[in-house]
């Protein structure tokens, strides 16, 4: 048996309202009609590198498969167009509401867009494991619960997309390329086509 080492146990403060330490996005008490989710990925790169990558819309387009275009309007605002189920498209203007270089960005869609949404991306230092990129998104699904279910079946649901986007980001940042199992350019183009 290994010799027990002297240890300073750190008392953890209780969460407000007696909650556990799990993220609020994992709560069983979230309302079913509310679309709030968080997705995280750990990437062997520094928070600074990943923040810098994220801040450039052209970079995001490379990993966000369902985003058709991001057109900058000014320093904090850009027009986003994403693909929806069955060849549909949704557009809104996104505004960065809080920007802490190397740490986090929050955004909010401007009124009048086709999908009301807001969210936060955090770049959390994970020491030797690199950086945890954590995206929290709240959105108002077009078509309500039915629309969201349809989007899920068509794999256009924002949570599925976010999870895949984060894994493509990880692949690109860790290996220098985004993995594909296509055998050749024709098959690659076909699969891309399937997806549109």
């Amino acid at each position, binding site marked *: 048996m290994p010799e027990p080492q002297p240890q300073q146990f750190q008392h953890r403060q209780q969460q407000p309202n007696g909650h556990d330490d799990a993220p609020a996005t994992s709560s069983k008490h979230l309302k079913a009609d509310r679309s709030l989710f968080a997705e995280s990925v750990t990437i062997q790169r520094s928070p600074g590198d990943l923040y810098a990558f994220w801040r450039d819309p052209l970079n995001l387009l490379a990993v966000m498969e369902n985003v058709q275009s991001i057109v900058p309007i000014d320093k904090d605002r850009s027009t986003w167009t994403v693909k929806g189920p069955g060849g549909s498209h949704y557009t809104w203007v996104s505004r960065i509401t809080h920007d802490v270089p190397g740490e986090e960005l929050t955004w909010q869609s401007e009124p009048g867009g086709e999908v009301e949404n807001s969210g936060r991306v955090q770049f959390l230092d994970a020491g030797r494991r690199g950086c945890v990129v954590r995206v929290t998104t709240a959105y108002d699904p077009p078509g309500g619960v039915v629309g969201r279910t349809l989007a899920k079946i068509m*794999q256009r649901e924002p949570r599925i997309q976010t999870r895949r986007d984060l894994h493509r980001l990880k692949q690109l940042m*860790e290996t*220098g*390329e985004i993995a594909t199992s296509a055998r050749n350019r024709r098959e690659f183009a076909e699969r891309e086509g399937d997806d549109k």
Partner: protein
Amino acid sequence: MKAITWHGKHDVRCDTVDDPEILNPRDAIIRITSTAICGSDLHLYDGYIPAMKPGDVLGHEFMGEVVEIGGRSTLKVGQRVVVPFPIACGSCFHCGKHQYSACENANPADKQDMGREAYGEPMSGIFGYSHLTGGYSGGQAEYVRVPFSDFGPLVIPDDSIPDEKVLFLSDILPTGWMAAENCEIEPGDTVAVWGCGPVGLFAVQSAFLMGAERVIAIDHYPHRLELARGFGAETINFEESKVYEALWDMTGGIGPDASIDCVGMESHGAFADNVIDQIKASTFLGTDRPHVIRQAIMATRKGGRISMPGVYGGFADKFPIGALMEKGLTLRTGQTHVHRYTRPLYTAIAEGKIDSTFLISHRLPLHQGPVGYKNFKEQQDSWTKVVLKPGMAAAA
């Protein structure tokens, strides 16, 4: 090019398909010189692995010559390489821990959802082994696209070593080796090995090389048991003898110190539990037929170790979790971290310490692949290992 493709249960064909191309900077294209049919390919052949699509190119044991490279490949055109069956990037968290078959970056992002649903986390990429593991085209073909070619393939520097001596570095030799390593064999140990297919036979050799005093090999094919005996193993033919009782007696009422399940989800034998499992699997009430792992758990000595390289894919019924706990057993398993073992095992082959060629019973031209599958499945006693060779002339 010609390639062996999957079309459904017991339906594999040699089709003409589009050639592979370089798509990513770290890719290489390999012209296949030798490729083998693996026991785990039979799980695909028998329709036990979900997420296959008609036309998928099979094969995850292959080697050949580099014919084209991407901008960031470190291979050179003309080099001879053996390619590990799991696809690993070499730079993620798991690769950093040498857990290459858990690589996080090789399975394309849009293919990961299924694995997350089935197993809680996506699997890594594997060549020619369903869309659960990425949907990559396999190497039972004239050419294959190999991602991360700067990391995975082992260059065979010595042209005088024939393909057949090194081909099995792609899967079954490291798999047999890791199976034995997972048993943490101590001097004086008795190790029981269920299944004397290629992985089982390599596990027998590896267990002895790691210091096992006795190895007891279990199967029902006389020829395969004879091959195990060739390496010094004692044998139990489960059609002639009661396995649990024999093991108990042969180990002086202690049980084997370690057990290796080299069978997996499609165990043979008319045991009551296995017959019920077959009915369940064929009616979709269960997926796997875990007779061997059940028996290994019951037979292994208290505080012993069990290694499970045999492939399971879904859910097991009547799993003796009580015996596992009450006897204090350790169970280790997983897809092989092939990249860990290719270099040291290549050295062992080059130095003549490990023989892998004894396994090969049949060599066929690529286009006879479907015949190879059928006979490897139906005549397991004599068809111990099939190697397909693109370009080889058909036998008369």
